[in-house]
């Protein structure tokens, strides 16, 4: 009796392995590439439409941004040593403002979309739970732009982007330098930085 149950259990597990690729039996490097390809496809189909109003574009971009990027991780990296000095309320406020700033600056860039395509060209492991996807943007004019995506797999095995490296320049590192300088200009106080971020948001929104 036990042996039959045991054998049946093995059969079910084996079948599950074939029926549900995506769990450990799948090829994560390809999954990582597909993740980026999927993001690009969704971005082009939902955001790159020139007819969209700015507010609608921002809403759609935010949806993609929140679901594909690890904002917590990026925010902590950008704030670096000041993160620990901040209270939980300040940290939360920072992440919210950071998300708003990112949405405003990036969704505007999609306004200029002109038929570019994103081609993943490979992926490799990057630490214990990290992946690095190589890709390039093919434009109508000029050479293709190499872009690397740094992904991290969470406990739920879902991919999230923690950095974009364009032509050798890391967005996270650039932001970190920028924010560190803004912190210093504000006497090292997190509240002052939050004020600076709020003013920046107002300025960007006023641009239209």
């Amino acid at each position, binding site marked *: 009796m036990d042996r039959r149950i045991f054998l049946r259990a093995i059969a079910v597990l084996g079948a599950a392995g074939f029926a549900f690729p995506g769990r450990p039996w799948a090829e994560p490097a390809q999954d990582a590439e597909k993740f980026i390809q999927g993001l690009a496809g969704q971005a082009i189909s939902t955001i790159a439409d020139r007819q969209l109003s700015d507010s609608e574009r921002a809403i759609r971009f935010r949806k993609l941004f929140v679901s594909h990027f690890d904002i917590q991780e990026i925010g902590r*990296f950008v704030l670096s040593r000041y993160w620990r000095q901040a209270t939980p309320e300040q940290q939360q406020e920072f992440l919210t403002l950071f998300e708003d700033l990112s949405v405003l600056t990036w969704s505007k860039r999609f306004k200029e979309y002109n038929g570019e395509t994103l081609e993943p060209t490979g992926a490799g492991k990057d630490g214990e739970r990290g992946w690095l996807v190589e890709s390039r943007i093919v434009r109508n004019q000029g050479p293709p732009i190499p872009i690397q995506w740094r992904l991290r797999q969470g406990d739920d095995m879902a991919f999230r982007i923690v950095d974009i*490296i364009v032509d050798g320049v890391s967005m996270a590192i650039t932001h970190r*330098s*920028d*924010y560190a*300088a*803004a912190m210093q200009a504000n006497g090292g106080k997190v509240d002052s930085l939050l004020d*600076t971020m709020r003013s920046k948001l107002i300025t*960007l929104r006023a*641009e239209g």
Partner: protein
Amino acid sequence: MRLKIKSKRRAFLCLAALGFLAAGCATPPPPEDKEGLAEYNQINDPLEPLNRTIFDFNDTVDVYVLRPAAQGYRAVVPPFGRDRVADFLDNLKSPLYFANDLLQGNPGQAGTTVARALLNSTFGVLGVMDVAKHMGISGHKSDLGQTLGSWGMEEGPYLVLPFYGPSNPRDTAGMIAESFGDGLDIYLQDNHLRWVSWTRMGLSGLSMREAYLDPLDDVKRTSLDYYSAMRSLYRQRRAAQVNDAIHPGQPGQHPQMTQKTDPAKSR
């Protein structure tokens, strides 16, 4: 003890470079603030106040002169024309690219440069058309600062040059040395055609400024601190270019993202 020696060297650098502009040097954080000091050393911008002043000056010149000129250039000359100008100017630099490719120990790259120069100068009518690219031989640039970097020379502290913008001691030295080694300029000088050299320089500046109109506008608009954002972008870009010289054709070394404030590779 090592820190003491480092700040001694920095102090000397400050004094030697600007005996009369002592106000241009930054004040490092006190040694008790270990994280602050680590950050200060990693940023490596001991001349920050002076650099910021020059940066602001450059920005003013840019807002009132360079940017409008570049916009005018873009408005008046169609993309086809601007591309021809860029291709022509790029072709003129082939001897320097070739020299640097060799110095970097990249014979393959050097060969590509020669092939491109020959193809573009003949079929491309003196370099006005980049026919080589259409044949699959795409171009690259090499400069002396990049070469020195590929030999292992550190870039040194951040410098903002008047008009030329972001740089560092190594790249500045490279630029100056190259200006003495530019064969075309030497020829023009010897034949009393200095004005052609100046025209070429002006056109180069205009062409490059036009190419960077959108990216620079974007950085200025979206950054909290334009100066530091540019510093970070410049340094990362340069590091990537030096890496290209050491490993041509391979994707770059990846800047590490660590939660520690370890200064290691990030800028």
